[in-house]
């Protein structure tokens, strides 16, 4: 194995490792292109006059976009659940995905409470309940998409 700090983020299986590495490289390449396009637009046309908060927001957006791109490519490539191919395995994994989503939702709720504090008005209370629910549902949905794509791919490769 090639020594790199990236190994921390990469799966052990060599096919998955190569695919994830490609996704990360694609994300980095696209972000480089976006940054160049953005700076060209700013220089020759838009002439943005941004304050430090806006600059921080834009700078923070790029790593988020990179992670998002890699995550969605990973999900849609069907390489996450490598062993699922039959109905029984699919149902079992779906059950596990449901439990995982619930756990992640609870963690999200706890972190949300720690960061935001106890809600003091109606809108904050709605936020506190609705956001973790939406997050949990989206997490479960993406896990389900990944599971479906993986099962389809594995079915095509079965013995």
């Amino acid at each position, binding site marked *: 194995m090639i020594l790199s700090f990236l190994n921390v983020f990469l799966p052990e*299986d*060599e*096919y998955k490792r190569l695919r994830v590495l490609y996704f990360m490289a694609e994300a980095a390449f696209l972000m480089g292109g976006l940054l160049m396009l953005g700076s060209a637009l700013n220089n020759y046309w838009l002439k943005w006059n941004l304050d430090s908060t806006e600059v921080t927001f834009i700078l923070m957006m790029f790593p988020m976009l990179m992670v998002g791109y890699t995550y969605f490519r990973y999900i849609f490539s069907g390489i996450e659940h*490598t062993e699922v191919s039959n109905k029984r395995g699919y149902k079992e994994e779906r059950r596990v995905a449901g439990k995982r989503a619930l756990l992640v939702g609870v963690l999200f709720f706890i972190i949300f409470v720690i960061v935001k504090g106890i809600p003091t008005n109606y809108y904050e209370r709605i936020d506190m309940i609705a956001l973790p629910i939406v997050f949990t549902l989206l997490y479960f949905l993406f896990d389900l998409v990944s599971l479906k794509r993986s099962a389809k791919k*594995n079915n095509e*490769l*079965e*013995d």
Partner: protein
Amino acid sequence: MVSKMKLARVETGLTQAQLAKQVNATRQTIGLIEKGEYNPSLNLCIAISKALNKTLDDLFWEGD
């Protein structure tokens, strides 16, 4: 075309999952190699050859 690797695996009586476990890969990776959709590293080729008691030529050489 059925790959030599798949024939050797079936001959040995191993499933894709069992072979994958022996060579520290996933079943999906074994399936992709058998279908010719992924070129494995030399290390993985050697591990597969050892697991199936074959030589690299037996499994991966396309000459004959």
